[in-house]
């Protein structure tokens, strides 16, 4: 059920996508990424390591994308982690990849002991949301060989890194991991994003 807020994000996402000055062929992205994964498998010979490298790559991209995103979207701080999920799904992925994963919110964990934090926390660590991808531009031409399936490769792991990197730049430390992928024969492609903690804003060195 789309709340007024959810619809507003959907509209914002579409507007930003339409307003993006330069677009490029996503097939080139898919082909390049696929060849990259193959090369990484050859170089590392270890699927876990490939997963890590893809995530790291995504992290570096995410830390840059977020600035671009904040400039375009003019969005302020999210009120709670629910809102973070809505924004990532409806505005984030939409404005860069023109896809709209659906978001399901995990239950809030029970309230922790009285917080010692100086700032009020909009969500307890442990809050989570799950992104479900009906379409995945990266996976369009891909079929994974048996070996990769057994080896535990998460083909699109770059997305997890992008989410982690972007959110870290806005003071949220999260874990983003795949929990299922149609490329592996699962029913759906899902990423779970869990809040680890809020990060204190860094005070520049020299300020007392």
């Amino acid at each position, binding site marked *: 059920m789309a709340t007024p807020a959810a619809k507003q994000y959907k509209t914002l996402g579409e507007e930003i996508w339409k307003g993006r000055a330069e*677009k490029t062929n996503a*097939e*080139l992205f898919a082909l*390049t990424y696929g*060849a990259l994964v193959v090369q990484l498998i050859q170089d*590392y010979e270890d699927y876990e390591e490939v997963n890590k490298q893809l995530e790291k*790559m995504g992290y*570096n991209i995410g830390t840059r994308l977020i600035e671009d995103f904040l400039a375009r979207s003019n969005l302020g701080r999210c009120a709670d982690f629910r809102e973070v999920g809505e924004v990532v799904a409806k505005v984030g992925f939409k404005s860069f990849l023109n896809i709209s994963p659906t978001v399901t919110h995990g239950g809030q964990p029970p309230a922790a002991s009285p917080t010692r934090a100086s700032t009020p926390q909009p969500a307890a660590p442990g809050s989570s949301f799950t992104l479900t991808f009906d379409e995945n531009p990266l996976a369009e031409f891909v079929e994974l060989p048996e070996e990769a399936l057994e080896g535990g490769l998460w083909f699109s792991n770059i997305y997890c890194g992008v989410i982690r990197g972007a959110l870290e730049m806005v003071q949220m430390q999260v874990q983003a991991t795949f929990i299922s992928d149609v490329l592996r024969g699962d029913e759906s492609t899902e990423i779970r994003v869990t809040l680890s903690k809020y990060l204190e804003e860094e005070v520049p060195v020299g300020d007392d």
Partner: protein
Amino acid sequence: MSLNALADPPPALMDAAAMDYFTIELVNTLRESSAVAIARTKKIEQEMADAGLLPPPAPPSTAAKRDSARDSMTSTPKLESSSKQGLSDEEEALRQRLEAIGMHVGANTAERLCHDRALFTDTLDAIKFICKELWVACWDKQVDNLRTNHRGVYVLQDNTFKPVTRISSWEGRQDALRRARIYVAMSGGIIRGALARLGFQAAVVPEISSLPQCTFQVKLPKGS
């Protein structure tokens, strides 16, 4: 009309800035992975040499020219050609990987663009296809200038080559040039892969003398 649209849907699009960031990180990731692969190969060679199965690795060639101060520990035969171009082993390994990825992209892109037409019989037609349709599909414009010596060598010139238009470096022009030269290894691969899928074996050498202009020398076998 709708049937045509179903058979040939317009390509999905994505944001160009995101693609740029991806390309930058792609190069960084491959630089690291190729170093890992080289280290592993050298370790195996060393182990086999220690076990007496291989002669010891050759000492570094002092006559080899390097344009960077980096030393290579050994000069393995298959990377020897790189020392003639002034690339370290690591840079050559990176260049090869970028070219290989480009070839995959170029071959598949050319195939999709040509799926409903007959193969090119004429070299010039194939080159023109590259200059127009492939260039547009990949880089949003056509080649600005095409020259040939009519003996199988073509020079394709793009005055504002998309992959390098945004390269800037706070370290200065020389560094920007060096980075651009690395990126266009993939573009050269795209051209080479496309031609290969069309049935033409070519050598493609990218060259940048001043940004954002880039030329590609395409050499086809004699008789083309």
